[in-house]
């Protein structure tokens, strides 16, 4: 007999978005409503398979009765809620978040959506002056909370720094890191429960770090790669991808994706093999998959070399 999961029975509540009324199940987020309505709501730290941290603030909307804007990814709808997304305030904040991030980070691998939002909202990171010099390896992680050197404003501070390569499976390119917390969540209670990395330091000098910034092989890391799976900006990526990008042979247009089932154990995770030039370059799993929720283990994500021993 097939068991059909009907889910929890939920009351419908009424929400008005830009003058249009929506009837949605209680417990939905404002972003759920916007997505169902087909709106193009920008997002960076939000992921369907992670707990919202509402840190990036790019998805903000106006909610009647709230002075500050509200992150649509995390705020749950209430009956009678009146939401506006079409205001100048909303557009300004979204533009500024994208602009401030672009002024401090390398967003060139953050994907087509981010590139489109940058243009649509009119982000202009260059108006903060030329970028300052990159930090030496490890320097950003050694700054003491509450102390920074007085800037002269001639250049804009960035998080630029060399790529960290300390293991065979993945690299950490923190010049791209926007501190969305996704990797920390995936390493922690949202998926892996390994807690190898956390946010360290404070303010603009905060970094994603192991304890005392030790190399990953000395940390609790189990190389599940779930941090790579959720990273939105290319700050975390496989060594295979990193090397191809460095060599100029990375070819996302020519990439094909093949679905299969992982053969390593009895769980049966769905794998998506990303293939370029007849070589597997990455392995992912769909975030809406009922078993994996997009997360894998080291074998599923990296254990594919035997397939291509030719």
């Amino acid at each position, binding site marked *: 007999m097939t068991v059909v999961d009907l889910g929890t029975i939920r009351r419908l509540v009424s929400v008005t978005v830009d003058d249009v009324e929506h009837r949605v199940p209680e417990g939905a987020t404002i972003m759920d409503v916007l997505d169902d309505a087909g709106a193009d709501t920008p997002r960076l730290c939000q992921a369907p398979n992670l707990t*919202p941290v*509402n*840190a*990036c*603030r*790019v998805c*903000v909307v106006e909610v009647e009765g709230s002075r*500050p*804007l509200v*992150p649509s990814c*995390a*705020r749950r709808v209430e009956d009678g809620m009146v939401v506006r997304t079409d205001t100048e*305030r909303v557009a*300004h*904040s979204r533009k*500024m*978040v994208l602009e*401030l*991030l672009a*002024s*401090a980070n390398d967003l060139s691998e953050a994907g087509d959506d981010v590139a489109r939002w940058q243009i649509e909202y009119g982000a202009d990171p260059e*108006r*903060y002056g030329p970028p300052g010099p990159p930090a030496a390896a490890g320097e950003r992680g*050694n700054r*003491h*909370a*509450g*102390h*920074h050197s*007085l*800037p*002269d*404003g*001639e250049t*804009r*501070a960035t998080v630029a720094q060399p790529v960290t390569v300390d293991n065979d499976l993945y690299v950490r390119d923190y010049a791209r890191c*926007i*501190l969305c917390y996704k990797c920390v969540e995936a390493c922690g209670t949202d998926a892996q*429960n*390994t*807690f*190898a*990395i*956390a*946010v*360290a*330091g*404070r*303010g*603009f*000098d*905060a970094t994603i*770090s*192991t*304890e*005392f910034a*030790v190399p990953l092989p*000395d*940390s*609790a890391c189990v190389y599940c790669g779930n941090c790579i799976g959720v990273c939105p900006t290319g700050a975390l990526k496989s060594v295979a991808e990193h090397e191809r990008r460095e060599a100029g042979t990375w070819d996302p247009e020519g990439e094909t994706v093949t679905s299969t089932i992982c053969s390593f154990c009895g769980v049966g995770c769905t794998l998506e093999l990303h293939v370029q030039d007849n070589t597997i370059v990455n392995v992912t799993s769909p975030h809406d998959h009922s078993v994996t929720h997009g997360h894998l283990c080291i074998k599923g994500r990296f254990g594919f070399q035997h397939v291509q021993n030719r």
Partner: protein
Amino acid sequence: MDLVLLPDAATDAERAAVDGVVGTVSEPRRDLLLPAFHAVMDGVGWISRGALSYVCERLHVPPAEAYGVATFYALFSVTPRAPRVAHVCDDVGCAAFGGEDLCAAMEERLGAPGERDDVTWTRSPCLGLCERAPAVFLQRASASPPSEREGNPDATRALESSPHDDEPGGDHAQIAPATADAVVHALDGEDVPGPDPVVSTPQAGAPDLELLSRVGVVDPADLDSYRAAGGYAGLRRALAVGSARVVDEITVASLTGRGGAAFPTGTKWAAVAGSPEPEKYLVCNADESEPGTFKDRVLMEADPFALVEAMTVAGIAVGARTGYLYVRGEYPAAERAIERAVAEARRHGYLGDDVMGSGRVFDIEVRRGAGAYICGEETALMNSLEGRRGEPRAKPPFPTVAGLFGRPTVINNVETLVNVLRIVAEGGPAFASVGSGRSTGTKLFCLSGVVSRPGVYEVPMGTTLRELLELAGGVPADLRAILLGGAAGSFVTPDQLDVPLTLEGTREIGATLGSGVVLCFDSSTDFAAVLRRIAGFFRDESCGQCVPCRVGTVRQEEALARIVRGREIGGRTVELQLLRDVDRVMTDASICGLGQTAASAVRSALALGLIGEETS
């Protein structure tokens, strides 16, 4: 979860420090993370890999997370440094009033910050001693400096003359006003005299005081002295009339929070008192760090039993059995006074399993902050109490629904709580008859800068700014501007002195009461330096969680630097537009009040033409 720890072993001294806090506890106790780090800092002077691993092992905390916590707080160091450090205030209340001169003198005596490995100094944000500028906070670990430890890694050497023999794990002290001589001697272990509350409260002993009525009158270390001055009459009455009545009186009194946000206290209390959850908490926010603010420090140093009694009234009224008092890490005298008062109150049955024979249970735990302005934000403070980074939480849910440890929690500021005693004694209507509108009762103000008699002053809500200045020796000659409400407040000018000091009155002129800061500047002030310090403050103190504040505070400081140096990109108008754009996103889209007010003072200073032309 299996802990993977670094192979480095803790020294005996590090183990002893941690064990002193953790004791025989064996279950995971993440909330002891800050106390354990404090113990290591106090005993050894820095947190080594071995020490961190041992803390993690004892408390069952993943080391990466513990490291994230240790590196969040300015008073912790995860790199070796001198065991004795002088934190010299160079913030707006001190810099022009001896602070910068003191920094120069310290540099001359001890070299650059961090240069020496036995004693050193560092610059510090506001230390809450503004009425006695320039201010210094001393961290004195009991360990000997690294150079004296060679070949004997566990060597510890007690300070030659530790003024607090009951605290073998090092001691801390404040010096204000400080001289380079006094600081250097104190770094060498010389005794530092405790605070004199009368100096900080020029009104002490005046007849019409409420909040300050016992300051300078009672002995802060003596429970009998407090009782003789009417102490514990409030708790007696509260127990007699019952919790529901107490909550009603607070609501009727229209008491609003005195930490800066001015939220109605009764609303918080009623929500938590009415919650069906079995476990609830009371938290006292004594993490006073708004630049220019020192009122809560004075209350705690001079009248600690009042706060202990008020917390007991509040805790029992809302149904909490435990109250946490989170005191600023840079307030060692206040912490000692409170610790002593809590112990005394407990010993005499005013705290514990049977408060004043009523059968009600309530006790207080004192926790020390570790150098983070953001922890004055209520949800950041709760995270800090839980042993996490002091990052504000998303609201809703509000603390009254899911606060400390996820339980319904009332969190109130020190001054707010001390007001409770008067409300319980006189009733809500009497309290509400003072002041007007939402602004009832009396209010403490922190006067500093170019005033004749700086200090904490208590006046009825509605007193004008001019009347307040008269109390402190008159409107200062050549007054140019007043920073009202703190770094998160705004500047007002001499033509606005007749503003009534109420929530409504200040709002009408686009200002705020904030935490009661009245920091006066005359026309010789270098406002460019003041603004850069304020911008630098927010850049340092942003927790880094949300983009508008994390990057916005950096861009604000950079743009100000260009403006004051005459190096504008595209001209002044373009730079002012850039500042306005950054201001708007921080104000509109930051998670918490820090980011939402980080541009406030800069905005008002630019509008008033304190640097360059007027722009409004």
